[in-house]
């Protein structure tokens, strides 16, 4: 297919449809409204179902119902709406119901603003809802990458029977870039014998119970042991990371999403000033690419690292854990959706290098 100039939100929606998603439940909130709007046009054309729910709570529970019935289901929202969905995300994690949740992050806490933000990193990667669970979190930095990640998100959700979060900032949703969508009229869907679909007492399939209540301690522990084993598998198999000009670098920038692209521009500016700076960009925020981040920053040539975020510092904690004190890791970032410019980042790196 030829390249098409698409808005991020619309590209994500179409990529989900190409990945076999036929059920979308959502609720309006800026800046992600183009996703439900696009879905409301497209779903009837592909025999799917778009439903505007009465709330984010209802939307995620409809996803639970549809995912638990064996379908590829999805919802999208932006930060305050994602807070409301946490009950359902925790339920899906416990009940092992695969689903995909898109968060077009805006500024918080509370209602915050509607500009791009990365303030939901903790919420997405450290649980978000109550209980001892994880969600796989993808953080794309371009519209093309978002589209490429959507089929993977649904496959990962099905493979591990887990909720998967696409954590993008509002900028990814609102901007337009040329994309090449892989059209797929017949995506392969795994069998889901565990799903609610109507049960034949004389058949071989056991009765399906989609449940997150395990009152007896041993039985809950069985679930948690099973989930943990699965999380270990995910940690082993699903890490994605981009390293850019990191080999033999003097300094390393760490960022994800849109900010990583600003950092790439900073790397270019620094190179023009004779500084060998690289960039490490986690694509999966959970599982976090700890080993890869460590190996890049702990290189002998590297003097230090700077993590840049549109927040007051969240991913920097995981970067520091990965580096484990072997090199200094500094932070640059602001709340209020203020994105540092490439020049500001380059200046900051030069200052750190001079000090060293």
């Amino acid at each position, binding site marked *: 297919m030829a*390249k098409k*100039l698409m808005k991020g939100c619309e590209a994500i929606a179409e990529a989900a449809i190409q990945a076999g998603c036929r059920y979308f439940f959502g609720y309006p909130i*800026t*800046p992600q409204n183009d996703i439900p709007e696009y879905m409301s046009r497209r779903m009837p054309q592909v025999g799917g179902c778009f439903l505007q729910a009465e709330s984010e709570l209802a939307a995620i529970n409809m996803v639970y119902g549809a995912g638990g019935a064996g379908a590829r289901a999805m919802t999208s929202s932006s930060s305050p709406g994602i807070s409301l969905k946490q009950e359902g995300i925790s339920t899906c994690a416990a009940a092992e119901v695969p689903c995909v949740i898109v968060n077009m992050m805006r500024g918080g806490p509370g209602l915050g603003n*509607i500009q791009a933000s990365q303030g939901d990193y903790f919420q997405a990667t450290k649980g978000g809802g109550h209980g001892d669970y994880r969600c796989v979190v993808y953080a794309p930095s371009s519209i093309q990458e978002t589209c490429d990640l959507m089929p993977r998100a649904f496959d990962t959700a099905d493979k591990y029977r887990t909720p998967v979060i696409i954590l993008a900032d509002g*900028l990814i949703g*609102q*901007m*337009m*870039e*040329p994309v090449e969508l892989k059209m797929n009229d017949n995506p392969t869907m795994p069998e889901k014998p565990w799903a609610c679909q109507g049960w034949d007492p004389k058949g071989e399939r056991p009765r399906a119970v989609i449940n997150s209540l395990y009152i007896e301690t041993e039985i809950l522990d069985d679930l948690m042991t099973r989930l943990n084993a699965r999380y270990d598998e995910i940690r082993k198999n699903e890490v994605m990371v981009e390293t850019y000009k990191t080999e033999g670098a003097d300094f390393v920038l760490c960022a994800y999403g*849109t900010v990583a*692209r*600003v950092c*790439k*521009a900073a*790397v*270019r500016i620094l190179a023009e000033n004779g500084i060998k700076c690289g960039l490490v960009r986690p694509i999966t925020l959970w599982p976090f690419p700890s080993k890869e981040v460590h190996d890049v920053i702990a290189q002998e040539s590297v003097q230090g690292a700077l993590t840049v975020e549109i927040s007051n510092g969240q991913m920097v904690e995981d970067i520091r854990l990965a580096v484990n004190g072997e090199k200094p890791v500094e932070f640059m970032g602001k709340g209020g959706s203020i*994105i540092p*410019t*490439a*020049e500001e980042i380059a200046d900051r790196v030069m200052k750190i290098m001079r000090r060293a």
Partner: protein
Amino acid sequence: MVERNIFAGFGGQGVLLMGQLLAAAGMKEGKNTSWIPSYGPEMRGGTANCSVMLSEEEIDSPLVTRPTSLIVMNRPSLEKFEDAVVPGGSIFVNSSMIDIKVKRTDVNAYYVPCTEIATELGNPKVSNMIMLGAYIGKSKCVDIETVLEALLEKLGERKAKLIPLNREALKRGAGCIE
């Protein structure tokens, strides 16, 4: 070649469309492009702007903080973004709506009476296309026919009859720079 542009004006002046058409035309000519709108809670009125990049190389940061060209359709936009333009860059001023001059002396200023020319063509709504034509006439970064191709996709065949008027507007805009 890297063009980093900001298009700005009142909501309703078609500044977002100008940017989109440029980004789409750039893409059709094999360039890397990006388009970022400003967005707020307001639906109509207010100010609107978008950042558009065109590049032969892969676009790292799509954010435009120092534009190579600033295209402004109203006075508040000129006042807001004038200082951000890189030295040696260009400012395209809709002189039908903006009664002040560019203060900076280290940039190229072009004054385009967009509304007057559009009215001459019989439709003041194509003021934005006059301006886009002026920018393209100066920057030569895409072909006018490619812009019209992108516009046709946007409008759909039902509104194909509007293409000749827009072609005329783009050409008149380009002409008033040379």
